[in-house]
């Protein structure tokens, strides 16, 4: 299945999936640098973190692909200590919800060590984490917690949405001398895109304009980028031209690119794969408005998870998340506020959801 996003043209790209791109990034970096290692529960088993660590145990052995006890707090600290010594750990969490068990070490030690110790140590640590969705992921397997990490100085946060950026961002994260919270989404794993075989990096702090438009700027975070692109198609049928931007990296955030687009369209709608309150959308909208210094009126909007805990039943879950239909409807109301409410005549299910049938 092809990716709905629009990765950059490359000379040597083969089409591979997001999960294959993640695996390739880690394998190539482990080849390049003996200090790179993978640590986390089940990183070495036959399921291989939904395929993303496939084959690493056979190639690099248990000394560099390390299964762990369920001790997220200690293992985070162990990864931080190893990072301080100059190694480059990749700590893997099969769901982002489990990062909450790492918060003390990650926030109190990892994020602060370089500053608190006056630059005497660096913490080149990658925290891989997967946001779940559908098939009953529910309350504790579906959370997008990236805004919590954006809040804390010393952490970088990236959320690539296609296979090309997944590989480039993961290599950049491994080579970065700071803790990087690497946000993956389970429904992106099967999407594919042209990906160069040779290692490369995708720079943090550079947003990607994945669709040009003149009436409204949609910013889609993580999997919501996919929904925004589908919404763009629906809006086109109604004669509305939507620009779509993938921030790729949330911290550092490319405020300039979003501001430039919003300035042209006069409307900015940020759709987050997380709750709205104090979320990345609030940060993006505020940063853009500050950057514009009131240059001209800007209509702004935010969408995200319903302000509820995520239910498991699909009967309720479908109302929990924004989707292409609700995004298009919201965008329409911002572009044509004087017209009656409108919703496209479409099913809000995307092919990627159709191929994900669980169990995990």
């Amino acid at each position, binding site marked *: 299945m092809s990716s709905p996003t629009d990765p950059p043209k490359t000379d040597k790209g083969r089409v591979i999936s997001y999960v294959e791109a993640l695996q390739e990034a880690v394998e190539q970096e482990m080849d390049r640098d003996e200090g790179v290692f993978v640590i986390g529960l089940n990183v070495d088993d036959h399921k291989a973190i939904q395929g993303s660590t496939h084959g690493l145990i056979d190639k690099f052995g248990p000394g560099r692909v390390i299964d762990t006890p369920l001790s997220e*707090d200690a293992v985070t600290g162990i990864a931080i200590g190893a990072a301080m010594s100059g190694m480059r750990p990749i700590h893997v969490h099969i769901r982002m919800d489990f990062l909450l068990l790492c918060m003390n070490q990650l926030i109190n030690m990892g994020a602060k060590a370089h500053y608190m110790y006056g630059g005497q140590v660096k913490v080149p640590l990658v925290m891989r984490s997967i946001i779940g969705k559908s098939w009953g992921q529910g309350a504790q397997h579906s959370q997008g917690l990236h805004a919590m990490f954006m809040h804390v100085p010393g952490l970088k946060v990236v959320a690539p949405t296609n296979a090309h950026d997944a590989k480039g961002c993961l290599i950049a994260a491994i080579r970065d001398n700071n803790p990087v919270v690497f946000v993956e989404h389970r429904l992106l794993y099967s999407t594919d895109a042209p990906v160069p075989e040779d290692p490369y990096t995708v720079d943090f702090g550079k947003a990607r304009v994945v669709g040009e438009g003149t009436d409204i700027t949609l910013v889609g975070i993580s999997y919501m980028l996919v929904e925004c692109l589908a919404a763009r198609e629906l809006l086109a049928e109604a004669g509305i031209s939507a620009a779509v931007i993938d921030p790729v990296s949330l911290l550092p955030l490319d405020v300039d690119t979003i501001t430039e687009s919003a300035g042209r369209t006069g409307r900015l709608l940020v759709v987050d794969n997380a709750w709205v309150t104090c979320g990345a959308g609030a940060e993006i909208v505020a940063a853009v408005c500050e950057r514009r210094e009131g240059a001209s009126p800007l209509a702004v909007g935010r969408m995200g998870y319903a302000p509820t805990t995520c239910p498991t039943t699909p009967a309720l879950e479908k109302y929990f998340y924004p989707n292409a239909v609700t995004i298009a409807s919201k965008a329409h109301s911002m572009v044509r506020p004087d017209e009656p409410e409108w919703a496209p005549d479409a099913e809000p299910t995307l092919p990627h959801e159709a191929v994900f049938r669980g169990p995990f």
Partner: protein
Amino acid sequence: MSGNVPADPETLARVYRSLRLIRRTEEEIASIYPSDKIKSPVHLSIGQESVSVGVCDILDASDVISATYRGHAAYLAKGGDLKQMMAELYGKATGCAAGKAGSMHLVDMGANVLGMSAVVGTTIPVAAGYAFALQREGKGRIAASFFGDGATEEGVFSETLNFASLHKLPILFVCENNGFAIHSPTSNRWATEALCERVRTYGIETQELADGDVFAIREAAGQAAQVIRGGGGPQFIECKTYRWREHVGPGEDYDDGYRTRDELEAWQARDQVAATGAMLDDAERQAIDDEVEGLIAEAVDFAEQSPWPEPEELYSHVFAD
């Protein structure tokens, strides 16, 4: 004084010098403190010096330690720079962390002193992670992790013991059991006093040292380090000790009602600074004392004369290059 007198006079002199340097440095910090020149919470190790000194004396310079917010003793015992420490307490640009650490986050990677932490227990897994790297390095270096009795109640302590034992990491765990978590006695916090027994269930050998005797601690740490260097995996020592001053600050707190001066006096009767000093002849002891006073005066002067960090330093070191 229990009978652990060192065999060689060089060791005795070195141990006394380290004990004396820590004691006198902290007494000097306490005397400066009312001037408000040190704008940092200080958790003094006075009374507890023998744990850091006994352990660090058997470590090599290339070995690594981690410690806690009550970390002046470990920092100095491992060879951390005294002038940079004093400047750090003063908040000056020449401090070990350029004024961003204060007393609670001392660091000196040149002396292999990993940064300390103000959140109880947090440095335990970090030291284990460093030990993981030392194991892969394969040069026989080890890590020593100092922490208090309160830290053993944190989940991360048990988690780290398990991981370290599972992977036979080259790490010495050193519990400085001073009997209090701030003001809460272990009797309010522990179902049983059998800390070493708890630790042994992880497959880690333990030693318990009851009276703070610096040479007994040194001997125990030396035996443990030998096992660790031989690939035997982590070792644990519990050192009972006593904090003479208040939890944080320069003063005493025996009028606050949570402990008695009798307890203090029992520990003062076997004060390790005095006891080791008494083993030296007067001239040698005096020479060490004079040297220590000179070093402290030099460090205080360095801190006083050093510049403040420039305002733009607020923004340096948020991210590493």
